[in-house]
């Protein structure tokens, strides 16, 4: 691999990311499965970087999973997204952040479709007015939340207290990055680094002290496939995709995986558990498994946040081996405490994967 060549090519795929004043759209998957990540994102952007971010309580899903399971027609999805634009317009904002790769892909697809087929935008405006009476302006700037973390990654490093370095050996942590198909496979020019050399996560890892692993199936789908996971009869497809990736990356011995998309984070975490139960295989030397972290969790660790504030107790593959490598000072006894410090019990242990406390 010629690294210099890659750097030259990806540098051609730059993206304009707004500097401040954001309208934030939550994710169906992230808020359900990785709620600590959404909390951490807003904490970093608002409290640490002092940026203006607004969330309208009346915003909803973009319908993305419904759209990609084909139960929601394109006209409906366009109009629901137009309503999100209207809420943003009414608040006086023009920079939108989505917390989900599917949303980012859906909204990008809609904006591109409206550009190519202006009659679809006109029809959507009529639909929205008829259904809600609302009007909208299209966003001046659309970013995925990871774009924002990427943009301010150096500031996060400066304010932070930790690095992606093995505290015992001083070596860089070895990291697999997984971008999520809909970030840039559909519209490469909308993602940092495009589809060929997506840099959004690499930039974080390298600036925060880690080393990125290249491996053959790096760009393969995690296996969501929408209906291919959501319907129980189809899940063989989903786990087969994930397994293909793990088989490919195993020899490179990653310390952890960072993901861009909350769905990918889920599949790479949960299918590891299933493979371990079905085949006794863990893709690590001592049955720890490979920890799967959202980029917000990684940013939060770099900032010095407590892992249990980041929601890392919601992983089926335990994160403690990584925390130990990084030298994070955490209290295992606090993993399953509620907000007031009371015990919430604890999960049963898996049969194969090591699982702390």
């Amino acid at each position: 691999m010629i690294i210099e060549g890659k750097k030259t090519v990806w540098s051609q795929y730059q993206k304009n990311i707004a500097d401040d004043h954001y309208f934030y759209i939550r994710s169906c998957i992230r808020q359900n499965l990785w709620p600590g990540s959404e909390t951490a994102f807003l904490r970093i952007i608002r409290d640490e970087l002092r940026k203006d971010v607004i969330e309208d309580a009346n915003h909803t899903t973009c319908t993305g999973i419904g759209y990609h399971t084909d139960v929601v027609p394109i006209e409906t999805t366009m109009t629901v997204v137009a309503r999100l634009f209207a809420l943003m317009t009414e608040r006086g904002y023009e920079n939108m952040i989505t917390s989900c790769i599917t949303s980012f892909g859906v909204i990008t697809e809609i904006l591109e479709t409206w550009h190519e087929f202006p009659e679809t935008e006109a029809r959507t405006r009529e639909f929205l007015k008829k259904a809600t009476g609302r009007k909208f302006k299209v966003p001046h700037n659309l970013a995925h939340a990871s774009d924002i973390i990427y943009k301010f990654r150096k500031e996060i490093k400066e304010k932070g207290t930790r690095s992606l370095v093995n505290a015992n050996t001083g070596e860089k942590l070895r990291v697999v990055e997984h971008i999520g198909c809909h970030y840039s496979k559909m519209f490469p020019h909308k993602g940092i680094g495009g589809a060929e050399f997506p840099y959004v996560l690499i930039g974080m890892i390298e600036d925060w002290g880690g080393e990125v692993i290249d491996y053959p199936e790096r760009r393969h789908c995690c296996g969501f496939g929408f209906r291919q996971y959501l319907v129980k009869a189809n899940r063989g497809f989903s786990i087969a995709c994930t397994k293909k990736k793990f088989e490919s990356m195993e020899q490179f011995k990653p310390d952890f995986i960072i993901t861009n998309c909350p769905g990918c984070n889920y599949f790479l975490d949960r299918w590891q558990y299933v493979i371990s139960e079905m085949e006794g295989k863990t893709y690590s030397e001592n049955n720890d498994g490979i920890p799967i972290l959202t980029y917000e969790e990684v940013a939060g660790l770099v900032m010095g946040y407590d892992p249990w504030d980041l929601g890392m107790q919601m992983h089926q593959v335990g994160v403690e081996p990584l925390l130990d490598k990084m030298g994070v000072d955490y209290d295992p006894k606090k993993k399953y405490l509620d907000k007031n410090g009371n015990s919430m019990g604890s999960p049963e242990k898996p049969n194969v994967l090591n699982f702390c406390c």
Partner: protein
Amino acid sequence: MGTLYERLMEDVRFKEGLKACINCGTCTAICPAAEFYNYEPRSIVDMIQLKDDDRIKELLTGDEIWYCGECMSCKTRCPRGNAPGLVIMALRSLSQDLGYFIESEKGRQQLALKRMIAETILEMGYCVHASHMNLEKFPEQGPMWDWVHDHLPEVMDRLGANYQEEGPGILRKISDEALGELNRIFEVTGGMDRLKRIERYSRVKAKDEGADFQGKGTDEGYFNKVFTENSQKHTRE
């Protein structure tokens, strides 16, 4: 009514997704579904280019169009700028519009997706909700999730959510006003028609098969059948 090909041409995704296929097979080489299922996006696009309604009807009534995972890896790689994944989305929409989806095992799964995803959108404001995700339907969630599910409000509260409360925040209660607007959008744009159509055709199929069909919920006989049935005839050897 027009021919099936003309109906497909009414969908912007079809116009955008199929310009001129040179049958090179790049889409199939990169496709995760083609690696797992008896599926070739190349052959589907090639067949559609014939503009033969009989062949298109075969696709609309068969399993093949339901194998795609809509990852859109094909869009990145096609040397002619086609997107077979978008063509698939247009085919799936037409299959549901015409009721052909109930003719295939994979197509019939649309009822499960309608009840699990679309109804959650209309009732809760988001596509999924943690309270619906139990281990019976999602066993791969593992024992950790079983613990989360048993302590959902407390876990969410611990992590900064505004669980089922008014105002902004994670898993907040979506207001009746917002849900009303969502429902009206579905009515005005044809979304509700699609959902009703999925139920209507599924009811007919359930009756043909003598399956229990209550018309709602995720525990009835027909739902469980389409949610779990796998004839094992779909994958590559």
